């Protein structure tokens, strides 16, 4: 009996040795680097992330394989987290325990991102957040196994808030989605508004998701504020902008979309959105490089990429390059490599990942074109200002992340 058991153990050990022996160079656990794209496949955010994010990640893997010819296999799997923290956390646990996933990418809502980051930290796996936006991801709840890549509420709020106050929009009223993300967005923006000499007259919280905004818009209207800040996202923002036009709020009062994606502008049309300011981490038509990549993406997806999807491509490439350079997919080694290497591609120039997990890169202040000014499909933005990374994101001195040494 004992001999049988021993034999079985030895055989198992030998069997386990075979694949890694075959791969002499990079030491990869289970013989494969597995990336799990956990995103909103069917809900409110499935156009700005969702299937498009999966396509971007697959493109990154294909390009990496073709260019670097690595000595390890790469696999991509995906699932729908339905924007629910518990579902996301369970999926992440299952992926790490059973599917041996090494890195979880995208994560669209803050609640799902925070839940998955916690699981990944506990199991020592990497999370790379591109979709979610709230600052707690790299502050109170930061982990040393997480990278927050594309943008955050602070960068968007301060970019747009500062620009609008400078244009003369001194008094603000907020329309805020009633969950962590909306409140974070409102807080970051009102801080900047006050800092720049503006004044916040009030706010109203609306349920998430909401369909009819007329009651809330009437309250914003009667506040008399010059600017109505929309601290929400996706369909909520779309419906709010559409209905604001209907109730004659615009153009008397102006709207500031604090989290707007190019898919939102596309859906609303330029008639409703012209002249709005917004901050973005990526615009497809910015230069030759961005155009070249975006057109490839556009061929596969049928529409131009959002910043989230472009960020997905860039961060997965950065991750795979770090695995190759580190010669292992060990979490801490890869994290160290990713933080040590600057990011230079079509998405970011001299991007760097800080100790709190924040990837710092230039952001763009855009103004939506008029219908007459738009010459071809998806020709939506004028880039008015490049906001340098150090100014765009929350400085480390303000950080509440325990990993940051002060």
């Amino acid at each position: 009996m004992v001999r049988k058991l021993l034999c079985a153990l030895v055989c198992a050990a030998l069997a386990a040795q075979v694949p890694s022996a075959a791969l002499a160079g990079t030491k990869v656990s289970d013989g494969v680097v597995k990336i799990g794209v956990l995103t909103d496949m069917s809900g409110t955010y499935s156009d700005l992330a969702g299937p498009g994010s999966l396509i971007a990640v697959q493109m990154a893997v294909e390009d990496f394989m073709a260019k670097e010819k690595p000595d390890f296999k790469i696999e991509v799997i995906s699932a729908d987290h339905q924007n629910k923290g518990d579902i996301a956390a369970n999926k992440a646990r299952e992926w790490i325990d059973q599917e041996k996933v090494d890195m979880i990418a995208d994560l669209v809502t803050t609640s799902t991102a925070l839940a998955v980051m916690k699981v990944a930290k506990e199991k020592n796996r990497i999370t790379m957040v591109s979709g979610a936006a709230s600052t707690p991801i790299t502050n109170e709840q930061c982990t040393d196994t997480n990278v927050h890549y594309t943008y955050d509420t602070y960068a968007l709020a301060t970019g747009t808030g500062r620009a609008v106050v400078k244009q003369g929009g001194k008094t603000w009223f907020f329309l805020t989605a009633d969950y962590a993300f909306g409140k974070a967005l409102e807080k970051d923006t009102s801080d900047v508004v006050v800092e720049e000499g503006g004044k916040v007259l009030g706010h109203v919280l609306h349920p998430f998701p909401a369909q009819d905004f007329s009651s809330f818009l009437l309250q914003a209207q009667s506040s008399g504020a010059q600017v109505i800040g929309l601290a929400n996202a996706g369909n909520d923002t779309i419906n709010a902008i559409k209905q604001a036009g209907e109730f004659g709020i615009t153009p008397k009062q102006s709207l500031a979309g604090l989290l707007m994606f190019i898919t939102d502008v596309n859906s609303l049309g330029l008639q409703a959105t012209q002249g709005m300011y917004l901050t973005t981490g990526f615009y497809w038509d910015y230069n030759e490089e961005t155009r070249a990549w975006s057109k490839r993406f556009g061929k596969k997806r049928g529409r131009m990429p959002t910043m989230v999807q472009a960020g997905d491509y860039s961060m997965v490439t950065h991750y795979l390059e770090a695995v190759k350079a580190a010669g292992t997919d060990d979490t801490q080694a890869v994290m160290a490599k990713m933080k040590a290497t600057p990011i230079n591609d079509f998405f970011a120039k001299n991007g760097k990942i800080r100790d709190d997990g924040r990837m710092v890169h230039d952001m763009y202040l855009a103004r939506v074109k008029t219908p007459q000014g738009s010459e071809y499909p998806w020709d939506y933005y004028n880039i008015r200002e490049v906001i340098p990374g150090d100014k765009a994101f929350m400085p480390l001195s303000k950080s509440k992340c325990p990993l940051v040494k002060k």
Partner: protein
Amino acid sequence: MIGIFGVSLPGLFGQLLVGLINGSFYAILSLGLAVIFGLLNIINFAHGAQYMMGAFSAWIAMRFFGVNYWWALLLAPLVVGATGILIERGMLRRLARLDNLYGLLLTFGLALIFEGLFRYKYGISGESYPVPDLLAGGKNLGFMFLPIYRGWVVVASLVVCFATWFVIERTKLGSYLRAGTENPELLQAFGVNVPLIVNLTYGYGVALAAFAGVLAAPIFNVNPVMGSNLIITVFAVVVVGGMGSILGSIVTGIGLGLIEGIVKSGMIANLLGNIFDKVPVLGSLVYPVKLLFSPEASAVTIFVIMAIVLLVRPAGLFGRER
């Protein structure tokens, strides 16, 4: 400015008017459900999807065939209603003798399929449908700026609701319908084609949903999930009004829209705050109630009312105990 409980009077009128507009949407959607439940005894869970299909048909007709709003208002209900007739003929009829849970499951499945197909084809961000030129712009009523289109929505849905009520309660055709609800076998014995009546009734209920969808298209972003966001609320309206009660669904729809408007204005929360906040123990006891009636919880209000109504009158406000 004159104000009550922290809300200015013009503000309150504005909120009531907005409540009336939403209420007329609830009314026309719950009316369709009530008509279907009354005669077919089917809980039509596909109603939200059919409302969405109405809105999308209008958009598709405009985008690809250049059909304007007014024609869409007529054609979309006919087209979507026709799909309803096919569904009744091909599927629901087979379930007629079974428990109504089966009809619910079937229509729920259909709703998921319809939504999935539209999501696959058009994505989630949705499409924009312009307000027709004739109804564009708005009127300043002094206490609020009323978009003309919203006024039209109230008028159109009230007319359709009243016409439906009139046909069912006051005409010979309506008497057949009501008789079909009471005793289909007996009615058939009198030579009335009951299966045809049932078939057309389902088609009409679905057409009502599509009609509401076309009305909604210029206001809301036309997207595949616009119906599923609304359907649960509308079911609550039907339950409060009394399952299958025509008048009940109209009156409750408008009433709950108004109440929701008041809650969204924050008046009730302010009122409770003003009275109880300074009272030591009572203040903290009332706090949860205050939260329940705050603007951010407005999505819950209708369900709280539903729970209370079910406790007091299980058959709903206008329903009959069976």
